[in-house]
Structure formats: C-alpha cells, structure tokens
C-alpha cells in the first residue's frame, strides 16, 4: 500500500468535484510497463490505492500511448468501459474520462474519472478542466518519481567510489554535501 500524498489526493478530489464524477484515480506510469494507483477519490476508487497493472490495458493504456484525452459513454453493460483498472470496479461505469499527465520526456501517468453522477456524458469542458489538473499532476509525479527511488547505501557508496576514481576534484566537492544529507536524513 502506498502512502497517501496530500497533493495527489487533492487533485483526484478536484477532478471528482469539478466534473461531478463518481470515482477518480491518478495513475503513475513506471518505466517497466506498469501503472499504479497513486491517489484515488470516490467510494469504489479508494480501495484501489496501490493497485498495479499493465500500462497497455484499458482506456488508460490508450491515453498513455496516444497522448490524446478521451471521453467515452455507453451503458453499464458495455464491456468496453470495463477494461484495465475499471475492470475491478463492482459498479460498472457508463461514462469514462481519461487525460494524460505529460512532461517533456513523455507521459508520466493519467488522470481517470469514471461515472457522471447524473448519468450524462463527460463534456469538452470536463476534458479541459481535467487536462489542467493533469498538467499539475504531471509535474508532481515527475518530482515524486525523483524522490521515490533514492539510491540505497551500497549503490551510493559504489557511485561515490567510481566518482572519486574518475574525477577526484568533483568527488571532493560533492562528498561533504552527501555526508551532510545522510547525517541529517
């Protein structure tokens, strides 16, 4: 289970409230072909926190690959709206909205909203609002990705040894900072 992130939670809540959706998720993409639920809002969405699944499945897979935002609506019987993450929902959605969180180096995740509360379809306005939120999420996801995988002590020691051998002056400058960071957590 991942630790809840206040910013991510705020973004999914904002996605729900601004579109009158039933459930919303922020999915973070990794470099190994998976997405995982970084934040979720809504009754059904909450229990999917930390879920990890293939990044090529469902509407989120298409949006990640194509970069194109999309809104789909059908009926709750429509299996095409129950693929990827949405396949795990108990209550099938009749509408879906998905937008990519993109950075210059490519998509880093998607913001996904399911089920308009009034049973209508997501609109162009909804797409635009979610795109703005997705842009904020993209920056936050990129920053968290940098923080989420700090090198381990062994890895750091190996890197520093290599640096000391290859570039002693740079090592001399960097080492005190790293020592201070390690000491102060």
């Amino acid at each position, binding site marked *: 289970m991942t630790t809840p992130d206040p910013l991510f939670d705020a973004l999914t809540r904002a996605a729900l409230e601004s579109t009158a959706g039933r459930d919303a998720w922020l999915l973070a993409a990794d470099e190994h072909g998976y997405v995982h639920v970084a934040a979720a809002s809504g009754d059904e969405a909450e229990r999917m926190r930390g879920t990890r699944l293939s990044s090529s499945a469902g509407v989120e897979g298409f949006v990640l690959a*194509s*970069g*194109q935002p*999309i809104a*789909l609506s*059908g009926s709750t019987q429509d299996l095409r709206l129950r693929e990827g993450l949405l396949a795990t929902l108990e209550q099938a959605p009749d509408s879906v909205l998905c937008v990519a969180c993109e950075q210059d180096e*490519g998509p880093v995740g998607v913001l996904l909203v399911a089920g308009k509360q009034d049973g209508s*379809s997501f609109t162009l306005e909804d*797409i635009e609002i979610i795109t703005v939120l997705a842009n904020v999420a993209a920056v936050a996801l990129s920053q968290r990705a940098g923080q989420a995988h700090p090198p381990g002590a062994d890895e750091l020691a190996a890197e520093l040894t290599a640096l000391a051998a290859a570039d002693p002056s740079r090592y001399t400058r960097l080492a005190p900072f790293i020592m201070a960071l390690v000491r102060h957590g």
Partner: protein
Amino acid sequence: MAEIPGAPAWARSSALLRIKDSTTLEDLSPEWAWGGSSGAGVRVAILDSGVECDHPALHGTVDHDGGVEIVVEKDGSVREIEGAHEDDFGHGTACAGIVHAIAPQATITSVKVIGQRSGTAACFLRGLAWAAQRDFDVINVSLGTSRRDWALPFYEICDAAYFRGCFVTTAANNVQRTSFPSLYASVTSVACNLSSDPFRFHFNPDPPTEFLARGIDLEVPWRDASMIRSTGNSFAAPHIAGIAALILSKHSGLRPFQLKTVLWATAANVLEAHDAPARMSRAIPLRSLSLRGSAAFNVHASSR
C-alpha cells in the same frame, strides 16, 4: 527558350513554369470544393490503434491487406508487419468511421501504431514515414507525443510528407500543451468546435491549431462491431481528413497548401464573414478554454 533537361527550376524560363489556367480565390465555395464528390480514388491512411476492417459501419472500404502494424521488439527496435490486424482499442475504427461517413468511396488503410505490442514515439514515427513513403493522399494522425527528443525526427518526416503531397491531419490539444506533430506548419492541426454538423468547420486565425471541426458527443464505430459515444479532438481531425478526401477526389493533384487554402475559403466563419460581416460582431462568449482562445468567431470580412 528550350528547356534544359535536369536544370533546376530557378534556371528555367519563367514561361515554362506558367500554368495554363488556374482556379482563383473567387471560385472557392463548398459546392466547387466538394459538391458531388464521394472521395473515390483517394487513399486515406489512419495512424492509430488499428481499424476493425469488417465493422458494419465501414462497408468494406478498408484495404484489409494493405495495412501495416508497427511493433516494438524486445530489444527496443521497431518492425513493420504488413497485412491485416485488429483494432486493440476502438479509437482507430472510430477515426476510420468518421472519414468513411464523409467520404464513403475513399479507400482507408490502417497503420497500427498503438496496441499491445506498440505505442511508442518510435512506432508513431515509423508509421508516419511508412504512409508518407507510400504517397497516401491523406494521413490522419489523431495521436501525439510530448517527448521533445522526438521533435526533430517528426519535423523531418512531416516536411517530407508535405513535399510528397501528403495532406496530414493531426489532433491538437484543447489547452496549451506540447504535442508533436500537431505543432508543425507542414501538418493541419484540428481541435473541436461546438457544431453537430460534420461539414461545419471553422478556420482558427490563432495557430498552430488551424481548423476546428466536430468532435463533441459523437456516435462513432468502435471495436466489436458496435458504436459508442465519444468526445475528443481525436475525432475533429478525421472530419477534416474526410473533407480533404472529398476535395482531392474532385480536384486531384492539389498540393497540401492549396488544400489548406480551399479549407480556409470554405470554413463556416470565413464564409459567414464574407457573406454577412455584421453577423460577426455578435460574438458569443464561450465557456470552452480552447474555443475562447481560438478567436474562431472573430474573423473579419475580407475579400476572398
């Protein structure tokens, strides 16, 4: 003055470059542009998630065996697999369906670049190059990548397609966001307007998005031989692709810049500005971010 074989254009007499007769801007109207056209003889490539060839809404106009799937190998290289393939999602079938509904006799070919085995920027690029090399008249790319490291290769391929005479339509983003290849002048970028009429499109005087077309709450063909309701700029681009196919069917040989000019001249807001300048002063404030920014309703009357 005799023409010197192989001489560059600048070395020839300008008389040799003279065109016998030419259309003038005054000629350009929807009737002139596509009246009576069905898209016959025009080849349209759909770069997308594949196309469900036997979908009932496509009436057998998809070149089943002529398509290609671009896949990523385990070592990261990309490979072309020519021949029939499925639509893994439904989006490509939707784009094909929109083109077909507008230009029913145009031949549609699927260039699958998104699916279980594809979906990278390298696949998009290879697919676009594949279609350009085969001189498709119209190439619809309702996809994009934000990866700046791919900007230059896309730029080069789009320019190559332009000079070969391929008309490339791309989906633009509704809000300001980087997406290649929609930012290039050699392609035609399209976003949604509010129309429910597939032939009512607008010229956007504030590029890189150049045209606005239908893309909101459409019933489109989707995977599994059925339909679905959808909204997105993805669906605005194939409307312009379909209209371009109609124009090219009736006026073969138009270069991409000429086609853009015909589209400009036949855009709803340009026609309305020409016919009734006073109407344009009644601009309606719109809630949509993209349409507010586009100034689509502020085209001033001008001679065509």
